């Protein structure tokens, strides 16, 4: 029965043609007129077209849904198998393939974080980057390789495996290359720190002298320091602690107070002032929230027995408290 009930396949097909044409955004006057005439011919025509185009608006205004969709595709890639659901593995493989052929140019993107800000970036290939405070990265997902240039700060990379398409984090000092793994890269004054959480990463110096091995493969729980000239021998680290910043915590185990203050200042607009020589030898252990560095400072002051001075401009400075000086 035309004009009522479910639309026929033919009608859906026609509406879809118009919708795709409008979506292309290159409609001529005469095409527009033809489309209007089609819509006017039957209220069901107009209704069908509206519903189709309504989907665009729904999708465009849905950052939450898009993020969840990325996550869904990412998860399918990670844990594809549910035994027996015969149609599924194939279908999942199809979706991987879809994401792997994602094009070059749309996937250039730069991300930045302000002091105190952390940001999770879900990449189109299913990988996820967590960018720490005051950071800057450029991302370029190519057909041959996936490249993240770490300009500043620290990232956790959770890499979606992709054969023949290595995932590389680059700093001026060198590169960390992974195929399906999770690791952090951090730029510091003296070079780059690479810590592997899962699987293996190849770390290579950018300008090694002739006699030095330029690369080193490091495994889970290992951390290396990378300078342009060399990669240091791996050190064992606690990976849970190394990635704790992604949960907004700074965990400190018997470290110099001055180093902890330097770390906290990375998360602050207004740095905490201090005299390193006055604090020398003062050590501290504890967990401090990075999401609220004022609270972190209070906690630190309590634990390390520091005195906090605030002036009227909002400047904050610390010095050793009396009790600490006596110790």
């Amino acid at each position, binding site marked *: 029965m035309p004009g009522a009930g479910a639309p026929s396949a033919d009608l859906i097909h026609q509406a879809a043609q118009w919708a795709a044409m409008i*979506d292309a955004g290159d409609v001529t006057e005469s095409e527009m007129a033809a489309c209007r005439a089609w819509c006017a011919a039957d209220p069901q025509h107009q209704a069908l077209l509206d519903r*189709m185009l309504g989907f665009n608006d729904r999708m465009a205004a849905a950052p939450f849904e898009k993020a969840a*969709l990325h996550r869904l595709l990412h998860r399918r890639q990670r844990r594809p198998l549910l*035994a027996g659901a015969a149609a599924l593995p194939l*279908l999942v493989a199809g979706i991987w393939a879809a994401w792997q052929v*994602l*094009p070059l140019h749309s996937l250039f993107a730069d991300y930045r974080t302000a002091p105190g800000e952390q940001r*999770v970036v879900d990449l189109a290939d299913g990988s996820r980057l967590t960018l720490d405070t005051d950071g800057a990265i450029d991302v370029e997902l190519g057909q041959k390789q996936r490249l993240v240039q770490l300009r500043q700060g620290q990232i956790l990379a959770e890499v979606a495996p992709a054969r023949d398409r290595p995932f590389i984090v680059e700093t001026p000092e060198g590169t960390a290359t992974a195929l399906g793994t999770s690791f952090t890269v951090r730029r510091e004054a003296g070079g780059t720190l690479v810590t592997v959480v899962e699987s293996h990463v190849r770390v290579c110096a950018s300008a090694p002298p002739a006699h030095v091995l330029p690369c080193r493969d490091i495994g889970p729980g290992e951390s290396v320091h990378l300078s342009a000239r060399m990669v240091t021998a791996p050190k064992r680290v606690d990976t849970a602690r190394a990635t704790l910043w992604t949960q907004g915590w700074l965990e400190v185990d018997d470290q110099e107070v001055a180093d902890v203050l330097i770390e906290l200042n990375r998360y602050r607009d207004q740095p905490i002032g201090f005299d390193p020589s006055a604090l020398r030898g003062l050590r501290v252990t504890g967990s401090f929230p990075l999401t609220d560095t004022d609270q972190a400072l209070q906690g630190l002051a309590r634990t390390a027995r520091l005195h906090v001075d605030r002036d009227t401009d909002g400047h904050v400075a610390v010095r050793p408290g009396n009790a600490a000086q006596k110790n």
Partner: protein
Amino acid sequence: MVEGAAAAVIGKLYTTHAHWLQDWLRLRTRCASRAADLTQDTFCRLLEQPRLPPLASPRGYLVTVARRLLIDDIRRREIERAIADICALQNGEADLLTPERIAEAAQFLDMVARLLDTLPEQARTAFLLRRVEGLSQQEVATALGISLATVKRHIALSYASCLSIMEGA
């Protein structure tokens, strides 16, 4: 077929094959309670059907129905998990996510996931690039190395499939 007779046939199917089907599902879900639920759902589906086809292979038929339910179930769980992940990431702004908003998002995503499952590979990629990544049709064409006309055809197919899914739901 008279209704009472159909119910009797299904009752017989149940006593003969329900155990077997539940084992089949347990192997695939690795979860006894999900297998039990899906077994019940499978027989409910049979009861909802206006007319039961003649069954040459009752187990084959049951498995067909059960597999479809299993795939729906897996997809829903995947979506729930993905949403939970994103909610966890947004803990600061989680207040904006009311239960209604989340339920609505889940429903929408279920539709999109089904759409992705229906589309052939290239059309699926074109759809993702256009709708999710926000490329123009021309940019999609360049990216995939195909003509603009082909992209337009893929996009039209995605609209048509999308509507068919909404109609069917």
